[in-house]
């Protein structure tokens, strides 16, 4: 018998006992809904955790450094035999060229004093007189009286992609308008030290005062080298205090750069390109200043971002092959994935129990159907139906109940999820420290997979009734009344 005829006959037979078949189908749908509900909870929680972690920037980033010590294959740090490779712009571009890498930017953090443009406060007694400081543009910056509050802060350079970080979710104001914009985002603590009403700072200018490190050229370098008795072939740098006016565009509550993509806490953030242009003196550069070759044109560290957390390991391997040291939180993601795999398995098993009970309903319905349609089966055999035709017909009926029940179950599971998401959102909104989020997630693959699984379970449940119907003796069946 052709498949289309099989489907037609099966649909006709299902319509004949519409109440019983509907109840069986509802039974299946409850089973599937239970399975979908359980799995979608696991998937939702996993998605929630993954997205939170992704937004934290911890699990898709690699922290790259270069130094005299290198991590060997056994994980122990060993002294390099050869000089360390420079972590410079060509190295950054090389890493950025890897297909899995979305961006590579330097980790720039530097200490600076932050003060209001109109009333700057200087607390560092070692700092030069206000009049000695000049803005980068050469314009003198007006400095106010020394204040009593401490506003000496770490400033961190962030790329434009940092907008996706969770820290900026509830930011007041806006993110940087450009990678080199003269703008700053302040932490709320820092902002409060500048103003009683931090929101009033938005759109106003602040001045940062920091130590800038300039490469001296030719005559100035030679003269400086001879003055300090240094070898003339060395690069000579001058460290000078610089003030720079920046517009406050945003205020954030928590530490935006905690974790790898900022490494440590900072009181203010500037665009990373601007941070490079500022040429600040960084802590590592101070440490390396006594070296014969202080890697003067190198970055202190690079942060490599990959497209997906699963790509961290291969990219780390590639970077290590270039001779650099790397650090990531890959192991933590691995454990997380393992935990959710086990959670999903258990939730799936519990969800499947209801479907197993529903499959007994299918067996019962089909066996009853055989008893009722015994004579009909005899007639079909008498006019030419083979055992296979009869078997396939019962299979098709079981399969149809599975598909209908599965589809209905997925819809039901999805609706349950929507209701729970709605309730959870309300609850989270009332608990003000939580960001409202969906804990229930039914991805397309889960919906289709659940329907497929329902079909499979129904066909397995139909095995016995179908075989029993096919084995019916037509002579006996025709006598049945």
């Amino acid at each position, binding site marked *: *018998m*052709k498949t289309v*005829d099989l489907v037609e*006959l099966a649909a*006709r*037979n299902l319509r*004949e006992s519409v109440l019983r078949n509907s109840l069986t189908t509802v039974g299946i749908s409850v089973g599937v809904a239970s399975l979908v509900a359980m799995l979608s909870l696991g998937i939702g929680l996993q998605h929630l955790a993954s997205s939170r972690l992704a937004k934290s920037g911890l699990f898709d980033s690699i922290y790259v450094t270069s130094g005299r010590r290198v991590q060997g294959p056994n994980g122990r740090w060993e002294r390099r035999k050869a000089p360390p490779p420079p972590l410079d712009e060509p190295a950054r571009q090389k890493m950025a060229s890897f297909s899995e890498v979305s961006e590579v930017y330097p980790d720039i953090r530097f200490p600076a004093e932050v003060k209001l443009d109109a009333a700057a406060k200087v607390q560092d007694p070692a700092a030069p007189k206000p009049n000695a400081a000049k803005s980068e543009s050469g314009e003198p910056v007006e400095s106010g009286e020394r204040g009593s509050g401490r506003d000496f802060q770490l400033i961190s350079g962030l790329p434009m992609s940092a907008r996706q970080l969770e820290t900026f979710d509830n930011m007041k104001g806006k993110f940087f308008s450009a990678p080199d914009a003269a703008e700053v985002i302040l932490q709320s603590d820092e902002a409060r030290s500048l103003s009683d009403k931090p929101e009033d700072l938005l759109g106003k200018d602040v001045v940062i005062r920091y130590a800038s490190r300039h490469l001296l050229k030719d005559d100035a370098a030679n003269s400086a080298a001879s003055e300090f008795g240094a070898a003339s072939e060395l690069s000579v740098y001058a460290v000078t205090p610089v003030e720079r006016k920046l517009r406050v565009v945003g205020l954030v509550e928590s530490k935006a750069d905690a974790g790898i993509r900022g490494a440590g806490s900072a009181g203010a953030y500037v665009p990373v390109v601007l941070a490079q242009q500022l040429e600040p003196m960084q802590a590592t550069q101070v440490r390396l200043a006594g070296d014969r070759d202080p890697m003067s044109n190198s970055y202190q560290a690079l942060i490599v971002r990959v497209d997906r957390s699963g790509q961290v390991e291969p990219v780390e391997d590639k970077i290590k092959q270039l001779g650099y040291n790397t650090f990531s939180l890959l192991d933590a993601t691995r454990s997380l994935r393992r935990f959710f795999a086990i959670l999903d398995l258990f939730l799936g098993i519990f969800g499947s129990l209801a479907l197993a009970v529903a499959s007994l309903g299918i067996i019962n319905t089909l066996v009853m159907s055989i008893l009722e349609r015994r*004579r*009909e089966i*005899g*007639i*079909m*055999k*008498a*006019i*030419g*139906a*083979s*055992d*296979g*035709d009869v078997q396939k017909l019962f299979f098709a009926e079981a399969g149809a109940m599975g598909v209908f029940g599965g589809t209905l179950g997925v819809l039901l599971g999805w609706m349950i999820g929507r209701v729970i998401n709605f309730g959870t959102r309300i609850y989270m909104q009332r608990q003000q420290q939580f960001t409202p989020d969906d804990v229930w997630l039914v991805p397309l693959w889960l919906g289709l997979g659940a329907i497929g699984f329902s079909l499979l379970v129904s066909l397995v449940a139909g095995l016995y009734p179908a075989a029993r119907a096919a084995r019916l003796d*037509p*002579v006996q069946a*025709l006598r049945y009344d």
Partner: protein
Amino acid sequence: MHIEAKKGADIQAQKLCRSYRMGQSEIRAVNDVSFSINSGEFVALLGTSGSGKSSLLNLIAGLDTPTGGSVAVAGRDLARMSREELARYRRSTVGMVFQAFNLVAAMTVLENVELPMRFAEVARDQRLSRARTALERVGLGHRVDHRPAELSGGEQQRASLARALVNSPQLLLADEPTGNLDSRTGSEIMDLIHRINSEGTTVLMVTHERPLAERYASRFIFLRDGKLVEDPSKVPA
């Protein structure tokens, strides 16, 4: 659309047996029966109730398998056929008409007649046209969309006959086709069967009504307690 008439099938039964076990005892429904029916013949199988007529008919229909001997239809030994081959034989070589009509109650008359063609995998358009032709041939062209319960006994038997003929069988097996009908309707059905036989189809009809058999059949086979007791070659004038 015309239903193609095939050449009738001949039947050869040799020492045919069919026995059933009932507890400790063995019941021989068909006991060592041998006969032959030529292609195109109209043979009536006569006997009292329980004589083994229907059991013999089921063996020839391929619905049952013999416990001994052989039965060959159109040169093919049914005893040696697999279940799948028997199903194919039932849908292509044999058409069956039952005393109780045996139409599927949930289907319309047209769907009932169409059903054997679904098993024979006939294309849908051909199927519909052939089913309508078969129904018109038995005079039911105006009742195609009715369900069996909405038809009279005679009409149901006509529908059953149309279903039996729709795959152009070589052999028509009728088990008491008039048993549930009044004499006038019974005669109409018998006239139809006779007409089918005159077009070349072999007919084997089980009946216990001798006058009816004498009126239409060209030969009788008598059974008593599962055994062949008489086989007159011609109906007495």
